[in-house]
């Protein structure tokens, strides 16, 4: 089973509620990770302000942060860094993971009610 880890910058919330504008990219990314989890990918997300131990325990991540905080977010697939400084789109994530077409998976929010499970 593939494991995808995301090292987020320090955020008090991952929806961007705390920012001057809600960030649709962050909301979209959260939904994309949910989708990946449904494709049997183990997804783990770390927020610098809440789970610093995960950053400190990974020398490759520390090295990236030393090069610049704008390297965050860092996306790691099975222990290997696959992207820095960007939240990949669903298509990009699917390609990195070698998953098939994402056509079958409609964007979250349109496919079902919040109660049916695929969006929750």
């Amino acid at each position, binding site marked *: 089973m593939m494991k995808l880890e995301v090292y*987020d*910058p*320090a*955020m*008090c*919330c*991952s*929806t*961007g*509620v*705390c*920012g*001057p*504008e*809600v*960030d*649709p*990219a962050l*909301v979209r990314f*959260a*939904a994309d*990770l*949910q989708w990946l*989890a449904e494709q049997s990918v183990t*997804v*783990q*997300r770390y*927020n*610098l*302000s*809440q789970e*610093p*131990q995960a*950053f*400190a325990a990974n020398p490759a991540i*520390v090295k990236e*942060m*030393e090069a*610049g*905080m*704008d390297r*965050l*977010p860092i996306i790691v697939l099975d222990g290997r860094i696959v992207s820095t*400084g*960007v*939240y990949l789109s669903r298509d990009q994530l699917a390609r990195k993971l070698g998953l098939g077409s994402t056509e079958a998976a409609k964007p*979250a*929010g349109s496919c079902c009610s*919040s*109660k049916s499970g695929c*969006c*929750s």
Partner: protein
Amino acid sequence: MTLPVADTRYLFFTGKGGVGKTSLSCATGLALAEAGKKVLIVSTDPASNLDEVLGADLAAAPTPIPNAPGLFALNIDPEAAAHAYKERMVGPYRGVLPAAAIASMEEQFSGACTVEIAAFDEFAKLLGDPNATGDFDHVIFDTAPTGHTLRLLTLPSAWTDFIASSTGGASCLGPLAGLEKQKALYAATVAQLSNPSTTTVILVGRPERSALREAERTRKELVDLGVTNLRLALNGIFTALRPGDPVADAMTARGRNAQLDMPKALADLPRTATPFVPAGTVGLDALRALSSDRPTAPLPVAAANTAANMPGGLDPLIDQIAAAGHGVVMTLGKGGVGKTTIAAAIAVSLARGGHRVVLSTTDPAAHVAAAVEESVPGLTITRIDPEREVANYRDEVLAKAGKNLDAAGRAMLEEDLRSPCTEEIAVFRAFARTVEDGKDQFVVLDTAPTGHTILLLDAAESYHREVMRTQADMPEAVRKLLPRLRDPDFTKALIVTLPEATPVHEAERLQRDLARAGIEPFAWVVNQSLLASGTEDPLLVQRGQYEIPFIDRVFADLSPRTAVIPWRTAMDG
């Protein structure tokens, strides 16, 4: 004059800074101790002067109060508690993670929410654990948790794995994610608070219209949360000893009118009243006087006493502001200190000097603004309605972010949207739009974001710019805001305070918070000074004397420029 009746084990005093929560807590505690009870007074107010009032060096454990057998007190600073928490979280990573990472982590633990939750954590240790205070007949708190904190902690979703889930949660609880372990303790605490046979919550207010409106808001919020054993304590009742002094007569009338116009639900609460105390309530004798039926006798004072360097009024400041020809003036301070009045006075004066001026006010009554609107050419008035700004922001967030959340997640998001931080952010957006107008005229605002909000938004902004490689969502006005606020030629920040202990403490904290965001105030305005009012009423003259050390301290230690404004009736909206 009477103190609140203490027929429950726990008593909470709640109200804005400076209304007399600490004085009433101590007077009530002292009266109970003198009736033979064993009493613990707890302060969780970061601006607390409990040590001074009780004349004892307090710590985080119960300390006996000299000359008051049975009376104990302890002092917890929630900012210190929040700081300790931050150190526990961040400390181990100093030298391990890069300095920039440490700095960004630290800012996340510096917000109002972190302090609020840390304060609740301290309440919970005392309230939720019967053994913590088992020796005492009564436990008195000089502050109460906010409605936001209580609602947040009673949400089932706050305790699900939502916070820690892989999609990550929005939440004011986020910075204190470790507190999930406390679930049982917090539940017990919330249950205690709403149990009328064990807990009384006392709303403290001055006999002023704005203070009573605030008390009514708190009352409603608490009732909605199921906290029903409420009382009202009116503190600072003043009646002129002899009619004839204009200041004393105006103050008497203001108090009487405010009580007559009190919101009905508030007026229906069991009520007590305590007198205006001219010299502050420091020491046990002063506390006893609060429950005495004898009118407070003024002490003889040397008429020549005045502040070491009595600062003048606003005019010299306005001349310096006018010299720039354009820019932003903002008045900052806690509610009730008179930010709107000061902002209006500055705006009118600048406009009369021939400048184009926009006065932007959040004052819902805006009667000051209405009065000047027609008479001053060059002055335009715009209003920022905080409630509308918050509603717009909430709708926008729920539309964009809420649709991807399940019911529990959405409940959490909605509660976060009711946090004090959210209101700040929502008003901030209106604020940012208005600051933009200061390029070619004067803009005077009676509201401003805190340093924490500015830093968070700055971080969010650079994050957008550098990480998302897009500026699409970020209005130009927001991007330029921080550099403009930091530019002393463009922005003049005025801290408004009152010549009293708690408001000056609170203003100092505001100044420190702004300093973190790299903003230095242009001046301090000490408002509603009886010393400067010219009153000859003996009690009010004595009150004026009490103001001297605070005015001196602002002038000498805190402020680059100081103005002192005499007490005026028009202050009370």
